[in-house]
């Protein structure tokens, strides 16, 4: 173990995205305090967007500065390791950070002008709290150490607890927040408890250490390792809302303000996946495969959870009438799909798990944010969160209905949309590894989900609503909807550029496995 590496000034460049976010967060808190009441808090929203953009710019710059490892003569490092390996700037983290920042950006952007003061009296908080939450997610995706990971996780969790509760006058909001706190707390405790064993059995919190220690740990304490992994799985399952750990999600999504719901569905979920990849690819995956079933079993458990999530999420959504709850359950199902590439493991023939995952995550983010934006507009208009609020949307706003239809098709995995391509890639992975049953589960639940998503379409196109007036659209939300729709279509028609880009910069040894310490 090398000497403790302290934070030097040069490291701030590597940490620039995170530092920008925290700086903006602090700045905006102060600004919110100082600004007179009469000033519209949308200013803070715009500033939040600026913060997110600046941070994203730094991420891109960092990415460009990283080598891709294809040319051996190229001495540019493929990743930067900071603070004794506890923080890593690599392409895994950077790609995810871009997703998180982009998603946060669009969520905040579309909520500008649609969130009402009567609903969220502390609108400024709604905006600037997104920053620390995104920061937490970024820390999680960049961490190379259990402690960093945990801190990031808690930063994200605690901020989202507050975000959920921002509809202060709403009875449901605080109830949702409370439930979220309890479930989140329990989940954290489980994860931590599991981590403590991982630390104890290998002697380090750094992934490199853990990898080294696993060999002897599995010989002497196989049962304890099992317990350790399953405890973590339980914790993550709650965070990811995999079935049967998902029940809280519907309640929390319903109680939270719609933008926050979108944030939970996209960023919080994505961050949890980042953590999952970091931990499992650097621990369970590295346990010796011969002589012990541990590796196999952990991944089987993940597959089972993925399948259960898909089934329960889809089937549960069938009977759901509240759109937010429905999208929560749909999120459960999608979490199952997102988990699949990891669950079928990294093998000789299946090494593209990360590109499958991130491609679908990107597609999922856009279609979800788009759908939530439509929902935001509709709920602002009628206050009706039920699916019948979509009735007659075709007559009130035909183009929005078309966009929503495309987004729903993507959610349902119908061609030619990003959702379809993403699912197809993940499916291909399951078939490559001959995990046919999981592929079949994906497909069958996808078909059942048609019933869910097309019930919206039925409402929009085949029923007439109670109101006939043209729907009042807010400009940012409209832009968001169309950006999401177009991106969804582009991802469906032209997946190759993105996938090639990912393939180009992403390398398993450097970005996913932390073997070199």
């Amino acid at each position, binding site marked *: 173990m090398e000497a403790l590496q302290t934070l030097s000034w040069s490291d701030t460049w590597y940490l620039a995205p995170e530092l920008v976010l925290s700086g903006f967060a602090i700045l905006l808190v102060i600004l919110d305090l100082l600004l007179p009441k009469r000033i519209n808090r949308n200013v803070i929203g715009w500033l939040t967007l600026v913060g997110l953009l600046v941070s994203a710019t730094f991420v891109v710059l960092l990415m460009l500065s990283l080598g891709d490892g294809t040319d051996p003569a190229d001495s540019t490092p493929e990743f930067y390791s900071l603070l004794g390996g506890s923080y890593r700037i690599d392409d895994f983290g950077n790609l995810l950070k871009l997703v998180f920042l982009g998603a946060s950006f669009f969520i905040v952007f579309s909520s500008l002008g649609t969130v009402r003061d009567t609903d969220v009296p502390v609108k400024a908080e709604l905006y600037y709290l997104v920053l620390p939450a995104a920061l937490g997610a970024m820390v999680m995706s960049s961490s190379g150490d259990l402690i960093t990971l945990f801190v990031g996780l808690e930063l994200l969790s605690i901020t989202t607890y507050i975000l959920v509760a921002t509809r202060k006058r709403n009875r449901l909001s605080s109830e949702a927040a409370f439930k979220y706190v309890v479930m989140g707390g329990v989940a954290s405790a489980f994860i931590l408890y599991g981590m403590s064993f991982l630390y104890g059995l290998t002697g380090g919190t750094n992934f490199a250490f853990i990898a080294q220690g696993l060999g002897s740990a599995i010989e002497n304490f196989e049962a304890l390792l099992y317990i350790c992994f399953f405890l973590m799985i339980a914790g993550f399952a709650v965070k990811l809302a995999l079935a049967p750990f998902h029940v809280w999600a519907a309640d929390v999504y319903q109680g939270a303000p719609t933008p926050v719901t979108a944030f939970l569905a996209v960023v919080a979920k994505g961050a949890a996946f980042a953590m999952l990849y970091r931990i499992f690819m650097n621990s369970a995956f590295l346990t010796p495969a011969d002589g012990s079933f541990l590796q196999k079993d952990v991944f089987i458990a993940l597959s089972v959870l993925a399948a259960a999530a898909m089934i329960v999420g889809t089937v549960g959504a069938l009977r759901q009438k509240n759109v937010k709850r429905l999208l929560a359950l749909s999120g459960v199902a999608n979490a199952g799909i997102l988990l699949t590439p990891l669950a079928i493991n*990294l*093998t*000789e*023939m299946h*090494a*593209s798990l*990360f*590109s499958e995952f991130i491609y679908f995550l990107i597609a999922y983010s856009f279609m979800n944010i788009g759908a939530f934006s439509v929902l935001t507009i509709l709920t602002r208009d009628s206050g009706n969160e039920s699916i019948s609020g979509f009735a007659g949307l*075709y007559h009130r706003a035909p183009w929005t209905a078309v966009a929503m239809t495309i987004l729903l*098709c993507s959610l349902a995995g*119908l*061609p*030619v949309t990003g959702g*379809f391509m993403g699912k*197809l*890639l993940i*499916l*291909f992975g399951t*078939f*490559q590894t*001959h995990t*046919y049953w999981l*592929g*079949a589960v994906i*497909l*069958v639940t*996808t*078909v*059942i989900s*048609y*019933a869910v998503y*097309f019930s919206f*379409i*039925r409402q929009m*196109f*085949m029923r007439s609503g109670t109101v006939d007036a043209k729907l009042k659209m807010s400009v940012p939300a409209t832009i968001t909807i169309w950006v999401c729709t177009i991106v969804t279509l582009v991802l469906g028609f032209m*997946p*190759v550029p993105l*996938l*090639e880009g990912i*393939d180009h910069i*992403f*390398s*398993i*040894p450097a970005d996913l496995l932390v073997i070199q310490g």
Partner: protein
Amino acid sequence: MLDNLPVLSLIAFTPLIGALIVLLLPGARSNWLRATAIIFTLIPLVLVLLLFAVYEPATGGGVYTEHSTWLTIPLNKEVLDMKLQGGVASFNLAFDYHLAVDGISMPLLLLTGIVSTMSVLASVHIRKRWKTYYVLFLLLLTGIYGVFLARDLILFFIFFEVTLIPMFFLIGIWGYYGREKAATRFLLYNGLGSAAMLISFLILIVTLGFSVSEGSNFLYSANYDVLLGNLSDPNALANIDTGNSRYFGFFLSDNARWGAFVLLLIAFGIKVPIFPFHTWMLRVHTEAPPAIVMIHSGILLKMGVYGLIRFAAFLFPEQLQSWTTVLAVLGVINILYGAILACVQREFKLVLAYSSISHMGIVLLGIASLEEVGLQGAIYQSVSHGLISALLFLIVGSIYERTNSTNLSDLGGLAKAVPFMSGILLIAGLASLGLPGLSGFVGEFLSFLGLFGSMKILTAIGVLGILFAAVYVLRSILSITYGPLPERFAEMKDARFIEALPMITLAALIVLLGVYPSILTDLMQNGFNGLLEQIQTRMGG
């Protein structure tokens, strides 16, 4: 003149362009919308007809293949790289943009062109939301043409799915009372079929589609021709059993073959539909607007037939061969089940729906024969049934518009009030019951002829179906057109020109195909060579 044009792409995508143009037109101008839709339905028809004119069965239309790579998805090769010392140059998953025509798809393309044109003319009965209607209609057409043209599994799948969504809307918005349920049922049922199909396709791609080319380029290909080539290549990885290696499992074991085959059978069986997967289509037949049922019954069901032949038969000749009896039994069940049920229906549309089931059974018999006669018969019967049911539903639409009912007990004596339509209806009915001289007979005869060589008793039982066909056709059509005319229909007007035109065209085509079948059979001449050779060699070995 076709040489310099990407004619197949034009066929597939002009409707899509039309859809976009319709989308931009003002919604209130129904005439503009209709004219645009008609034009963009006619363009592919004209192109298909031109293709038909220059198509040479001997070369199999190979000139008009369009092949380019569409998506080459990079798969991370690092782990593989580490394992193989020499390294891997590339590891890709390739979906090709590959369109082609041959003797099997050509007749169905013609059918699509004709029926879609008739259907767009028949869409005069559509009374609301024209713009959306025509957009979806044209979108549907792109899907259908694509299905018949695509030679890449994923491309095929995409086009197949693309037909689902517009159909859902077309049924759900413009249908009758139970439209929403019917639309949902349609979507879910067919979705399940597609899911089964995709499973099967993916199994094929990860085994048969895999190849290592010069310079260790690892490639999964979804191209149909590649698959077909690997299937008959004994050196292809899919045909070599390397033991139970988990990672390099490219071997397509017998179990996997059977699994994929049965899944394809289910997938396309739902579409055809094969008993017991038929209930969804009854609802579509009764609830969808007639112009759409023309497309559905006339073309969409044939996508199932096409898929069965193109994929289940060509890729799994061995499995098909050992299951011919199963297929034939299913066919016979379809024939008799559909026919007997058609005999007791009180709703004309249901009679037609069950009769479709019955007729599709004959197609199955043709496929089960695995004889060239039977296979051509199956396609012939598909085309013929497409024309006939399109014509029948065209008339159903016109009758419904005038009487607001298609219930047999509500109607009667229409021959008095609308002699022209009744006459056409009678022709269609007679064609449907397999009257020689009309197209239905040729298809049925060829299918029976094909199967009879191998399964005499089953065929003989199947032939009973044409007796029941006579019963249900006459029972229903005579109770509509013959008998005393009720007072309330006395003022009924006969077909307008816009209605009569497609009726006459379809009837004329039915007669033409009945009298001069070579027009299609010559087209199909070399279509089945590949399959039959496969079977031949397998039987030899």
